């Protein structure tokens, strides 16, 4: 995964003038959550298809494991961002 491609360092002037930087980061987070949601839906579908018998055990396990890993990754990114945000909010003005 190349984060650099998705997170260009914003131009400070543009970032100050508009919500440019906010939109970029918001987009990244929104994309990540959309992707995560797709993985979770796929895991849900896999469980249903396993019951009806039209999917192999290992395929269902792999899809579930994929969703689990994607969730952990998203939560790790969220935690990092929240830490950074709180650090900045604690700054003395």
């Amino acid at each position: 995964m190349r984060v650099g491609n998705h997170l260009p360092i914003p131009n400070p002037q543009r970032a100050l003038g508009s919500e440019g930087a906010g939109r970029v980061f918001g987009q990244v987070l929104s994309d990540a959550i959309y992707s995560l949601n797709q993985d979770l839906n796929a895991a849900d579908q896999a469980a249903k298809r396993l019951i009806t018998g039209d999917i192999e055990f290992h395929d269902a396990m792999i899809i579930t494991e994929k969703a689990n890993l994607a969730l952990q990754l998203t939560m790790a990114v969220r935690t990092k961002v929240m830490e950074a945000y709180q650090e900045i909010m604690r700054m003395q003005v």
Partner: protein
Amino acid sequence: MSISAFNIFRISGSGLTAERLRMDTIANNLANANTTRTERGGPYRRQMPIFAEVLSQRRSPVGQGVRVLGIVDDPSEPRLVYDPQHPDADADGYVEMPNINVVKEMVDLITATRAYEANITAINGAKAMAQKALEIGRA
């Protein structure tokens, strides 16, 4: 998401599917170890799956797993068993039995099981690496 950990899931997943199919053919061979009548006439013939590698579509030099080309029959001769009472016995009293060696099938069964486990170990290794990567910077 094109994360390489997920790529390993796909590659090893194809290996799991292939070994499952191998297991299916072995089970079918064992079930038909004494079958003397088939649609095509003659005794059942041992089935073998043919596997082929999946090449990468993108520039990556790493292959993308395994796929099943098809299932072929073992061309070796049927076993001749002397059993004049058997309804399928020929004029000399010999019956053509399937070219299946049950011991060989058992060995193949163990090989398929171990190969399946090896693919699962690869998946677990990839997962462990991804989880370790998430620990970067934590404590």
